[in-house]
């Protein structure tokens, strides 16, 4: 797949989307450009965007990364469009921002069942809700773990870190 095909699929599915091309030069003797697309997607358009990528060719989700940006949570869906095409894979990153007051995103497991582990991880670590996810059980943290460690304003994580710092200071 080419970056253009991916861009067309995305803009057709979610009107108004402006994917940004960030190519990287790779190689030493005969360098080639490996394309990467980054796009901001409203959460209402997420499922349509992923479905359009899936319709365009084999699709793989590498990971969803995320961060706490004050009043909002930013999620980055790192997808590989055209997965398994020699030299023809395009890394697509979809950026979805949701308010902390309503951190809900539609699940993409219906399109990509392989996204379940990473969506469940985001429930634990960032306290995001995914509507339509097959299971919400913890993957990494113990059941009943208090708080969400990647939230910067999380009092439970702060308590854990403070205990650790105190303890390390005592033992050093």
């Amino acid at each position: 797949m080419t970056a253009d095909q991916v861009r067309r699929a995305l803009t057709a599915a979610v009107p108004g989307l402006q994917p940004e091309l960030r190519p990287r030069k790779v190689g030493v003797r005969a360098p080639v450009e490996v394309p990467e697309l980054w796009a901001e997607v409203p959460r209402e358009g997420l499922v349509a965007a992923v479905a359009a990528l899936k319709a365009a060719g084999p699709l793989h989700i590498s990971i969803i990364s995320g961060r706490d940006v004050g009043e909002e949570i930013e999620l980055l869906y790192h997808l590989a469009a055209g997965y398994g095409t020699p030299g023809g894979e395009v890394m697509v990153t979809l950026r979805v921002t949701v308010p902390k007051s309503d951190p809900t995103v539609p699940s993409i497991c219906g399109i990509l069942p392989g996204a379940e582990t990473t969506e469940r991880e985001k429930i634990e670590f960032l306290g995001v809700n995914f509507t339509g996810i097959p299971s919400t059980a913890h993957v990494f943290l113990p059941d009943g773990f208090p708080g969400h460690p990647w939230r910067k304003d999380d009092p439970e994580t702060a308590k854990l870190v403070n205990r650790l710092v105190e303890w390390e200071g005592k033992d050093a």
Partner: protein
Amino acid sequence: MPETQNVYEIPIGPIHPALKEPIRLTFRVEGERIRGVDVRTGFAHRGIEFMGMKRNLIQTLYLSERICGICSISHPIAITLAVERAAGIEVPPRAQYLRVIYSELERIHSHLLWAGVAAHELGFDTLLHLTWKVREQVLDILEELSGNRIDYAIPIYGGVRRDIVPAQVPKVEAMVRYYRGLLDELLDAFLRDPSVEARTRNVGILTAEEADSLCAVGPTARASGLPKDVRQDRPYLVYGELGVKAITPRDYGLEPRGDVYDKAVVRLLEVGQSLDLIETCLVEMPDGEITSFPKIPALLAHLKKAEGEGLGWHEAPRGEVIHYIRLEAGVEEPVVWKVKAPTYSNVMSWVPMFRDQEVADIPIIAASIDPCICCMDRVHVVRDGSEATVQMEELLRLSREKTDRVTRRLSPVPRHGGWA
């Protein structure tokens, strides 16, 4: 899945002789047949990403190397590529070749390690001893080149930390010749042995459709016939120019079935592929600098000013590893660091692989994806049926008490004066 009253639950793990690392697999079995499995991870979760976001980038690089002892080149390569992308750092050509050589050496030792584990899980310990004996050669070369058998501390932002000097090249070439002469014997021992075939053919099947929808990666996906390989599909470093081709069982003249046998085929053939790549790199590698930042303080100062985000990927021995990093100017630590290890993508593949298999095949099917669980904090204890979490202080106190008890019994003189 027909549920009858004859279905029982068997928990395997978190600690179990059939497993090399802590994970809990709860099987529903009917007689000797597995009807379903529930996978629970997290028993080795150390919160490494959280720690990385509290440290400067050089410290984070060291931390990334300790995510996994086997992939101790793969994670540093992915994080350096991500940071170089975010901070706009160029890597000298020679360093790119050196990184490839180290990754391929790692692939050889990792695949041989897997082959030994697989043989052991089949009850074929002679083969385990043979593969692990021959694995020593590549570990010796890694020690010769980097100073360590694992945790090589080779990649750094902007290049690598050690060159391969001319005197070392013949040693690497001798290692390549050694494995070339041995590969046929290994293929023979694994793939033409009737008992190995009986235990692995049509066992733990993952179809191509399942591998695709569950986003499997690495040899797990390739054994199902999907020619996916990050080195081939999304070139990075000099892999695009080396012409890497994803290996599937078709390269061995077999129609892929996605069973344990096919996974062995793919991994063993990949050892040969890595030998070719190392040889080509040694010939093609140009002379020159090995890093664009020879002085660490200059590198740290550059990184502190950097602002941006980047992705770095690499085909680790077990499949795609990807790191995302976000840097902000004026801040030494990464604002976001997300790591995806290959097993993360492959865990879900276990569910179809275990379906309708025999209980006796659990160890080899579990091992077939070459799981690497050590990407995960906390100790989880189940006592009297109730779960509790033991914190580090408590664990340390318990272990010191035990050491005291043991040493008192062993020697009349205390072996240590206690830790202050």
